[in-house]
């Protein structure tokens, strides 16, 4: 959505799935993509049990780039100092 602000107004549950953190992340993001593609639910950020966001509103949201798939290519979650850093390749 570029710079257009997205409110964390509702939560959609996402069941965690995957053998490790990278797989779980790819799965999570794939579910987020599916929610956008089918319900036009725009993600704002991760919630405690799923994804927080709101329905697409053409008066406030501008779709900048279409994500076609969340790939497993080079997917990685690693610790750097106090932070977790993730790498995911999206097919656009």
């Amino acid at each position, binding site marked *: 959505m570029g710079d257009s602000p997205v409110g964390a107004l509702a939560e959609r549950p996402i069941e965690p799935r995957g053998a490790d953190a990278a797989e779980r992340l790819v799965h999570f993001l794939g579910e987020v993509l599916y929610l956008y593609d089918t319900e036009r639910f725009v993600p704002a950020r991760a919630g405690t049990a799923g994804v927080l966001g709101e329905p*697409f509103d053409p008066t406030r949201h501008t*779709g900048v*780039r279409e994500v*076609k*798939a*969340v790939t497993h*290519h080079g997917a990685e979650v690693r610790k750097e100092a106090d932070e977790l850093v993730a790498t995911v390749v999206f097919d656009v």
Partner: protein
Amino acid sequence: MRTEGLIFADDGLMRDLEGDQAVQQVANVAHLPGIVGPAIAMPDIHWGYGFPIGGVAAFDEQEGVVSPGGVGYDINCGVRLLATPLAIQDVRPRLAPLMDALYATIPSGVGSSRSDVRLGRPDLDRVLRDGARWAVTHEYGTAGDLDAIEANGALPDADPSCVSERAKERGKGQLGTVGSGNHFVEVGYVAERFDDGAADRLGLGPGTVTIFIHSGSRGLGYQVCDDSLDTMLQAAAKYGIALPDKQLCCAPLGSPEAKRYWGAMNAAANYAFANRQLMAHYARRAIAKIFGEDAAGRTRLVYDVCHNIAKYETHDVGGGGRARRLCVHRKGATRAFPPGHPELAPQFRDLGQPVLIPGDMGRYSYVLLGTEGAFKETFGSSCHGAGRRLSRHKAKQLARTRNIPQELEHQGILIRAATRATVDEEMPEAYKDVARVVDVVHAAGIGKKVAQLKPVGVVKG
């Protein structure tokens, strides 16, 4: 490795490939069981998910495998070319309204869908089963179009029941839309001809105005691929297939896992054929609006090819005269059957199969014909396009201080795009020079140049 890798390139393209993971990916493919002949890559080779883009790999039907990574996420991403009866000098004065009409009639960009094509679940299943034939039955185009589509626009192994509900949900609202990224609808003209006779036969007279459509199976195909990956990973473990890269996950041909993917993949491919058939219909409507019904009625389909697909085909391996049925994967590669091949419709049988090679939006595209050389060396395959040379990030950086649409307009190319970001990322310099790719193909005898097309208008998502 079970076999060699074979990359078609010139010295410059090989130098560009130094250190590129695409070369390692060719080597990885060579590890897969039942591979017949070398792991092949075309001169537009680029790294991909598992298999390289621009890759061709054929597998024995008993010992070999099918791999979703060898087909690609965008199942039957492909290209279609229309030839209008119009000449460029007649179109230029009305180019802006033509581009506006195309932009209005063919939805593009993020979240695009058509309000005039509403598919219930039974209709969607028919699209998945019948592909372009479904579209023609519903008066999108004519029956004559089907002869000029690879596999007549409908793959018989499609099984809609193998396509998940999630994939159908993603795809049901997207039929007849272009998508975004590197997909486009492009108006151009025949700028140069290398084989006058063949060009005339294909309706590509000097200065003839053409319409290129590049699109695939949209969200449905992506979901089919995604759905298959976990299954294929488990299948590889189950059947003891060692994978140098998880993304080469696969199952033995004939296994239940392979059959399920095969049915779904062919169904998604049919969706893409129907998608391009619809878009061609709407392109003809745009022609009608600006240039009249007669011009629209005489706009013919030159050809429609897949460049992300796997097919069962018969090939003579090693020149021994013994026909073998192989599963040929082409990811970012185009079928290029030679003159005389029985699968070609009568109008192409003596010519060979048209091969459509889109370039970037600033330079040129090409039309080739398939050759005996391709049939002998690359399982009847050729390149598919230019291949990226700059990342999207780098392209955006370069575009920051420039106005790409304006630069193109100064060159006489009108852009109609849903977002500026896509145009910047798709700038001509982000791509290799497709002329070099096509020259390698021509020199290697795996495709024969017929015509060069130059762009004058592009619709992008």
